[in-house]
C-alpha cells in the first residue's frame, strides 16, 4: 500500500513537472485529491482486516488499487492538458497556447542574450506566459473538488465495494440468490431493456453515462445460480449434447444480455458476456465433448463475422461492426468509397468539410476517400503511433502526446499509458491483471460450493476478459470494441461496477477462509479427542 502511495506521489510530481515543460499547468489541488483517494483505500484495508476479521485474498484488492491509482494518474495527466479537455475551436487555441509557451520556455533556456535582446529589446524582457490565448483555467478550488463527479464516483465505488462485501458474505443472501436465479435474470432484463430502448442514444444514456453497467453483475449472478443448480443434469449427454429441457433455459438466459446490448450495439460487452458464459458453462459441466462444441461454436461465430465483414449486404448487423472488423485488419488502407458500410460515413465527411469531389476525377476521389478514412481511424492510429513512440520506458509521464488520441482517458487509456510509461508501464498493468486472474481463480478454487465457485470464476473472468479485450483492441490483437479497462479507465458506472465485482470476490474469499478456519478447528478438536 505504501509502495503504491509513494509511486503515485512520484507520478504526480512528474506530471506537474513536465506540465511546466510542456506548456500547461496541472492543478495541485486535483493531485492532492487523487492522492487523498488512497486514504479511503487504506481505510478499506483496515476495515476488512480489523473490523471484518478478513482472512482472504488481499492480492486481488492490492492489484485493483494499483490499477485504480495508475488510472487516476493517467486521467489526471490527460485532463490537466487544456488541449485534451477542450472541444472545437477552444481545442486548437489551447494547442497553440501550449506551443507558444514551449517556444517562450525554449527562448529562455536556449537562446543567448544577443538573440533575446534582439527579439525582446533586452534579455530580461522575455515574457514567461504567452500573450495570445490564455490557457483555459484548470486550476480547481477546494469547492470545485467537492462538487466534482470525479470525487464522488471513486468514493461511491469504494462504498459499493463495501456494501457488496457485506451482502455477499451472507449465506442467506447467497442461498436466496441461487434459488431465484432465473427470476433475477428476467427481472433485470425487463427494466433494463425498457431503459435502453426508450432512453439510449448511440449506446449512451442521458449524456455520456451508461447506468446499465451494474446489470452485468446481476446477469452473472443469475447465470451462475442457474448453472450451479443444474450442472449435474447437463453432464448427462447424448451425442455430446445435454438434454434439451436443461439446456434450453441456458440458451435463453445466455441470450438475455445479448438483446439489450445488441440494441445498444455494444458488441464489446456482448463479446465479454458470451465469452464468460461459455467459460462458466465449460467449467461447470467439464465435458470434453462440450468443450469441443464450444470451441467450434466460437470458431463458427468468428468465421461468420469474418465472412460477413467482406459481404455485400448488411445481414442486419450494424455498419459499425463491419467498420471495426475492416479497421482491425487494414487500419491504414482505405476501403473503396462505394463499400456499402463505408459510403454513408464518407459522404458525411464530405458534407462536414463542404467538399464536392469531381466524380470524373478518380485521383481526387481517392484523395478525399483516404482523407475521410484517416479521419475515421484517427483514434486507433494515433493510439498505435503513441505505443510506438513510447518504446520501452516511455516518453515520461506528462511528456508524451496522448492528447492527440481521442478518448484516451477511457477506451484508449492503455495507449496513453504505453506512450508515457512505455512497455514497462504496460507490463505493470498486465502483471496486475495477471495477479487478479491468479487471485480470483485461487478464490474460486477454494470455494466450497458450486455457486460461489462459479460466481468467483465468472467475476474474475469478466474483469480479466474485459482487460484483454480492451488492451487487445488498442493493440490490434482484437477488433476495437469500445469497452473500458477495469479499474483504470475514466467512467463512473464502469468503475463502480468493477469495484462491486471486487467486493463480491472478496466476500467469497472471506467465506472460504472462515470455512477453512472452521474446518481446521474441527480437525484440531477431533485430534485432541
Amino acid at each position, binding site marked *: 500500500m505504501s509502495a*503504491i502511495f*509513494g*509511486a503515485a506521489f*512520484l*507520478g504526480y*510530481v*512528474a506530471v506537474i*513537472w513536465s506540465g511546466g*515543460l510542456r*506548456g500547461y499547468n496541472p492543478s495541485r489541488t486535483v493531485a492532492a485529491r487523487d492522492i487523498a483517494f488512497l486514504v479511503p483505500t487504506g481505510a478499506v484495508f483496515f476495515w476488512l482486516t480489523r473490523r471484518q476479521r478478513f482472512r482472504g485474498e488481499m492480492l486481488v484488492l*492490492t*492489484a485493483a488499487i494499483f490499477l485504480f491509482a495508475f488510472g487516476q494518474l493517467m486521467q489526471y495527466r490527460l485532463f490537466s492538458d487544456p488541449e485534451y479537455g477542450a472541444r472545437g475551436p477552444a481545442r486548437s487555441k489551447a*494547442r497553440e497556447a501550449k*506551443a*507558444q509557451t514551449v*517556444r*517562450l520556455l*525554449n527562448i529562455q*533556456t*536556449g537562446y543567448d542574450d544577443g*538573440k533575446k535582446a534582439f527579439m*525582446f529589446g533586452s534579455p530580461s524582457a522575455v*515574457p514567461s506566459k504567452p500573450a495570445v490565448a490564455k490557457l483555459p483555467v484548470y486550476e480547481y478550488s477546494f469547492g470545485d473538488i467537492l462538487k466534482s463527479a470525479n470525487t464522488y464516483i471513486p468514493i461511491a465505488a469504494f462504498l459499493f465495494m463495501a456494501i457488496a462485501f457485506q451482502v455477499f458474505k451472507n449465506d442467506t443472501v447467497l442461498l436466496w440468490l441461487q434459488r431465484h436465479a432465473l427470476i433475477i435474470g428476467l427481472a433485470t432484463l425487463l427494466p433494463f431493456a425498457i431503459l435502453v430502448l426508450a432512453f439510449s442514444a448511440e449506446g449512451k444514456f442521458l449524456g455520456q453515462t451508461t447506468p446499465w453497467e451494474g446489470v452485468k453483475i446481476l446477469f452473472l449472478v443469475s447465470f451462475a445460480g442457474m448453472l450451479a443448480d443444474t450442472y449435474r443434469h447437463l453432464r448427462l449427454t447424448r451425442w455430446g449434447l445435454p438434454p434439451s429441457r436443461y439446456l434450453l433455459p441456458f440458451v435463453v438466459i445466455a441470450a438475455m444480455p445479448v438483446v439489450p446490448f445488441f440494441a445498444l450495439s455494444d458488441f464489446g460487452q456482448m463479446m465479454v458476456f458470451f465469452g464468460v458464459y461459455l467459460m462458466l458453462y465449460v*467449467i461447470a459441466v467439464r465435458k470434453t465433448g462440450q468443450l469441443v462444441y464450444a470451441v467450434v461454436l466460437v470458431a463458427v461465430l468468428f468465421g461468420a463475422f469474418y465472412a460477413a465483414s467482406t459481404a455485400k449486404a448488411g445481414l442486419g448487423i450494424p455498419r459499425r461492426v463491419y467498420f471495426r472488423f475492416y479497421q482491425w485488419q487494414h*487500419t*491504414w488502407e482505405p476501403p473503396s468509397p462505394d463499400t456499402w458500410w463505408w459510403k454513408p460515413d464518407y459522404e458525411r465527411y464530405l458534407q462536414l468539410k463542404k467538399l464536392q469531389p469531381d466524380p470524373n476525377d478518380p485521383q481526387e476521389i481517392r*484523395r478525399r476517400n483516404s482523407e475521410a478514412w*484517416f479521419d475515421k481511424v484517427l483514434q486507433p492510429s494515433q493510439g498505435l*503511433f503513441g505505443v*510506438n513512440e513510447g518504446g*520501452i*520506458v516511455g516518453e*515520461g*509521464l506528462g*511528456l508524451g502526446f496522448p492528447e*492527440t488520441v481521442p478518448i484516451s482517458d477511457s477506451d484508449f487509456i492503455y495507449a496513453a499509458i*504505453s506512450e*508515457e*510509461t512505455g*512497455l*514497462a*508501464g504496460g507490463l*505493470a498493468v498486465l*502483471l496486475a491483471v*495477471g*495477479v487478479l*486472474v*491468479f487471485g480470483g*481463480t*485461487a478464490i474460486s*478454487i*477454494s470455494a*466450497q460450493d*458450486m455457486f460461489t*465457485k462459479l460466481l468467483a470464476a465468472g467475476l474474475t473472468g469478466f474483469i*480479466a476478459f474485459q482487460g484483454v479485450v480492451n488492451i487487445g483492441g488498442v*493493440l*490490434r*490483437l482484437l477488433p476495437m470494441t469500445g469497452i473500458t479497462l477495469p479499474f483504470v479507465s475514466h467512467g463512473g458506472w464502469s468503475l463502480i461496477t468493477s469495484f462491486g465485482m471486487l467486493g463480491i470476490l472478496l466476500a467469497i474469499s472471506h467465506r472460504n477462509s472462515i470455512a477453512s478456519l472452521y*474446518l481446521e478447528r474441527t480437525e484440531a478438536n477431533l485430534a485432541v479427542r
Partner: protein
Amino acid sequence: MSFGSVISRSASPVSPDSGRRYFHSAETQRRWTNSHLYKRASHRMLIPFILTIIFVTIGISLMLLLAWAAWRHRNPAPAANEAPDVERRFGPSETNQWIRWLRVLFVCLLVSVLGFHSYWVFWADSNKDSTFNRAKRLDARNLRLAESGLKGWVLDRSGKLENALIRYRSDAGVITREYPLGAAAVHVTGYSDFIYGAGGIESAYRDWLTKPASTLNRMQSPTPVGEDLRVSVDVALQREAFSLIQATGKPAAALVLLLPNNEVLAMASAPSFDPRAITLEDAWLKMSEQAEDFRTQPLSPLVNRALGTLVTGGSSLYYRPGSTFKVFVAAVAIDTGVTAERFTCRGEGFTPPGSNRPIRDFGGEVHGTIGLADAFRVSCNQYFAQLGLKLGKERLASYAARLRFAASPAQTAARSLDLWQTLHGDKDHLDYVFAPPIARMNLSSKVTSYDVALQSFGQGYDDFSVMSMALLAATAASPDGAFVGPTFEVGSTRKVIGPFISAPSAAQLRVLMRSVVERGTAASAFASMGGRITAGGKTGTADRDVFDYDRQGKPVVDYIDKDGDAHYKTESWTDSWFIGFAPAEDPKIAFAVLVENGGQGAKAAAPIAARLVAKAASLGYIKSGAPPR
C-alpha cells in the same frame, strides 16, 4: 525543336495515399512530408523522466511481488470434507482442474497482448516504407512538435542577427518564424509549413536546423532549440540582385558566386512570392496548381530560375545559353591549341556540310575573315559554328564531361547530384532541393554537322541552367581552371570536382572575356564603371519557343489533331544572358544573369551584371585579399 527540350513534364501530381493536397509524385511527397517533420530529440527530459522511471520500477516490482505471492498461493488446500467417491465426481471440487486451465488460458492471452505491444514498439517501424511508417507521417504529434520547436536561425555571411535570412520574431509574445527578405530570397530560404511542406534551405538543412543546440535547453524541452546556420549569402547583394531583376518586369534570374570556393553570394529569381503566401490557402493552391501543370509551369513563381528547379525541389526547367556558350567552345579550342584558325563570316551565312540551311549572325552582321580573339569579342556565330565543327564532337564531348554536361540524349532528364559542397547539410536533402538539372548537349553519332554547328554557339540542342553557366564563368575565372562545386556555407573547403582546362588556358580565356567587356559587345553596359573596376564576361542572346498564354495564364490551343492531342500556339522568345567575373586580373566573383525574352544580351542582362559588380565592389568583395566578413 520539340517542347520536351524546353519544358520538362512534371511528375504525376498527386500520390494515391496522400491525405492532403500536394502537387508532387509519391516519391516527392514521401520526402516532402518528411521535410517538415521536427526531428524528435533522442534524449529525454531529465527530471520528470527519472521520476517516471522510479514510478514504473516501483509499480513493476510491486506487481512482481504480488505475482510471486499469487503464484505461491495459486492452489489453496482442498476442502477436507470431501464427499464419497461417487458424489465427488459431480461435486464442486472436481471443477478446480478446469479453473486451472482457465488460468492458463488467461496467461496465454496476457502474454499475447504483451507480444503485440512489443510488436508495435520494436518491429512496426523497422521497415521505412511500411504502411505503418507511411501512415505515421500523418501523426498529429508532428504538428505539436513543429509548432512548439524553435528551429535554428539562418544568418547571412556577416553572422549578424539583423541580417538574418530566417529568424523568429515576437509579436507581443507570439513567436513566429520570419523571413525578413520575403520574396527577395524565397528561392534560397524556402519556407516551412506543416501542411504545405517545406522548400529551399528550410528543407535542405532541416536536420541541422532542428539539431539540438543548447545542453541546458535539451534537458528541459521536448523540442529543443535547433542549430543556427550561417550561409554565404550577402543580404545587401541579394536584395540588390532581386530588385534589379524584378525591375525588368520579366522572368529573370541572377546568380553571384564568390571565388575560390564558389560560395553563393546572391541567388535571385523573378517572379517571386512571399513565403507568407503559403498560409493563404486559395492563393497557394492556385500557385501550386500552376506549378503542377507542365504547360503553365514556366510562368510559376515557385520555379527557382537560377537553378531551373522548383523551390520545393523536383522538376526542371532549361534554357538555351546562346552566345555565352562560346566561352565553353573557346575554352576547348584554347586548351586543345586550336587558336590560330581563321574563319570567314559572310553575308549569305555559313552552310555546314551536308546541310542546306545557312547559319547567319544576329541582325545579318558580317565580320569578314577573323581570328578567335576578334570572333569572341564581337560574338560571331559563323566563326564558332565552324570552330565547333573543326574541334569535332569527340573533343567537345570530352570537355563537356569535365563540366558534367551530358553529351548524349541517353544521359538526360537527371539532376546534377553531389554537386554542392556542404558541411552541415544532408547531401540527399540538399541535392533534392538544390541540385540543378544536368546541363545537356547532343553530340551523339546521329547528330548532323548542322546541329553540332548550332550547339557551338549555344543554340539547337543545348539545354542549360543559369547555375551551370555561372559555374562555367567561375571555372574560367578560377586561376587553376578547375571545376568547383558551389556551396551555401561560409568556411567550407573548396570542392574541386575535376580539372577543366589548364591554368595558362584559363588565363588566355580570361583575356578573351575581358576584351568583351572592354571593347566588345558588353562595352557599353560596363562603360559606366569607367575602368575603375575591371571585369570579364560574355553576352548571350538565345532564341527559344515558348507557349503562347492568354490573359488567364492558360496556354492557347492552336488545333487538336485527329488523336485528340492538343497542340499549342507558340511564340519565339529571345533570352538575354550575361556571364562573367570580376575583377579581370584576379577574379573574386563570378556571376550569371538571365532575363527571359529580354532581347540582346548586351541590352538587358549585361547592365544588370554591371550593377551587380558595382554593388559587390561597394560591399568590398572585389578588393584583393580576403573577402569581407
